């Protein structure tokens, strides 16, 4: 009887060790996946780095037939669409954060609005792209005809508009949480001094949450830079950079992610594939760094 019990506890202990090791193993696997991704991207882009060198990011010609790869047009296209989208989205994400964080934090209306904003992020990007292609593009084309620019319909502006909607939830949901965290003693102090609600928001709430809201904007930017499908369907995909400002905004362009999406399966030789992988590597570094800075700010903010 006694022996059996000892055996039981021995086997339990064995299981306990196995379980603990399994947990540690899972943690290691995760690190291995990320390190593996990084190593693969770097290794496969070596041929391209060797032949193009540092000119890769600054040279303006992308001609796979002649094996010339310069990612500058796509770099500009990516930055342009992302920043236009960001500028368009900021007033809205701030407004939502202030409304749901300060004016109306509770109740069914508040819940409904919060849930619908989360739903914006849940709708797959392919659906935004499809809708944009058939509904937004004709509208933009009409507007372009009216204001007298070449009526492409598709292009940087169209892509940015859809992108702006798609990235609002990332900044907004963080902003709501942060604004709700502003200590009420601070706000009450300001009210006691006779401040109006607008003045409290401007001089107490916003300064208190500024860095946190900025982190939210960074998360939105990270999304915008890496967004592929909706942008690919709406941006028009031209490998050259427009020369004048009007065409740059209204005309077709290309982003790093959409070049990869369009050309990866067509890459028929080593050099071409490697150039595309290098684009992916650049995209990886940029989005990861932006995201990590954002996350770091949030952790610091919530710990204080």
């Amino acid at each position, binding site marked *: 009887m006694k022996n059996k019990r000892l055996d039981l506890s021995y086997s*339990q202990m064995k299981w*306990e060790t*196995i*379980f*603990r090791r399994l*947990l*540690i193993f*899972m*943690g*290691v*696997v995760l*690190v291995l*996946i*990320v390190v593996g991704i990084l190593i*693969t*991207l770097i290794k496969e882009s070596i041929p391209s780095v060797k032949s193009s060198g540092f000119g890769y990011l600054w040279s303006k010609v992308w001609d796979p037939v002649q094996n010339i790869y310069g990612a500058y047009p796509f770099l500009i296209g990516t930055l342009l669409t992302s920043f236009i989208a960001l500028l368009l989205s900021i*007033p809205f994400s701030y*407004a*939502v954060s202030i409304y*749901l964080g300060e*004016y109306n934090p509770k109740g069914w209306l508040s819940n409904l*609005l919060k*849930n*619908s*904003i*989360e*739903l*914006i992020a*849940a*709708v*797959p*990007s*392919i*659906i935004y*792209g*499809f*809708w944009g292609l*058939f*509904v937004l593009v004709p509208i933009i084309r009409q507007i372009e005809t009216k204001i007298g620019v070449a009526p492409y319909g598709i292009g940087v502006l169209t892509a940015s508009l859809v992108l702006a*909607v798609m990235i609002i939830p990332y900044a907004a949901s963080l902003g709501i949480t942060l604004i709700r965290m502003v200590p009420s003693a601070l706000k009450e102090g300001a009210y006691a001094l006779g401040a*109006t609600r*607008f*003045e409290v*928001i401007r001089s107490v709430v916003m300064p208190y949450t500024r860095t946190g809201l900025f982190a939210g904007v960074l998360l939105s930017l990270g999304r915008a830079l*890496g967004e*592929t499908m909706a942008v690919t*369907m709406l941006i028009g995909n031209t490998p050259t950079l427009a020369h004048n400002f009007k065409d740059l905004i209204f005309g077709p362009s290309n982003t790093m*992610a959409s070049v*990869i*999406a369009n050309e*990866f*399966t067509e890459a028929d030789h080593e050099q071409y594939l490697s150039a*595309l*992988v290098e684009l*992916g590597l650049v*995209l*990886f570094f940029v989005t990861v760094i932006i*995201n*990590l800075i954002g*996350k770091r700010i949030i952790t610091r903010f919530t710990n204080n």
Partner: protein
Amino acid sequence: MDARIGIRNTKSMLFKGLIIFLAFLITLPLIVVLLYIIKQGVTQVNWHFLTHVPTPVGEPGGGIANALVGSLLMVGMASVVSIPVGILTGIYLSENPHTKLAYWSGLCVDVLQGVPSIVIGIVVYLWIVKPLGSFSAIAGSCALAIMMLPIVIRSTEQTLRLLPPSLKEAALSLGVPYHRVIIKVIVPCGFAGILSGIMLSVARIIGETAPLLFTALGNSYLSYAVTKPMESLPHVIYTYATSPYDDWHNLAWGASFILLMFVLILNITTKLITRKWNIQL
């Protein structure tokens, strides 16, 4: 003096008005998109649509059975791998928050969450498609599994951290071994939170197109072979939406409708679960 206060109050009211206007304005695009997809898609969907493969241009009929099967199969395979790994990693992170490994794994979760899905597609192409020499459903579900992991891990970790430590302490003090405490006490207590994380991650990956472009590719026939290219819902939308034929556009609207319904149902159910969970806490 009075006039000054009047101005300040008006300013405050105007600001509030502006905020409310902007805050509600952004639901407009969502409503417009949802209604448009539903309007265009709902007329396409019928039993025939769900059980037949696409027809060539010009022939009437045709459906998205191949995409439906492919999506479910690939998401299913991704879940089978990702859910256990994700939950176990989440348990590790919540149980050992201060170890070095936990710091690095946590960092890796953040990194994975930020990686654009197209980059995951490239990497899985280089890992699986290139060595095997063919696009395959296995590669597709591998890409989806990597996309799914960080969401499952984070939701598990956060749910388990919310549980009071007394639960674990009580079980341990009764002499229950550690692994049984986790499996029989901690995980069941956080079950609703973990489940909602799983459902959110499924909703997220079922609509992912970019990682499937160079992994599962696409296939206009019904296929169950996991080592062959396979169609998926988002990919069928992409191919047919960018084609020049009206018949195919209609097929894509129908597919969008089905995809949207999947995503909406998963999200709304998750909301209901988490609401219930919050009340219980």
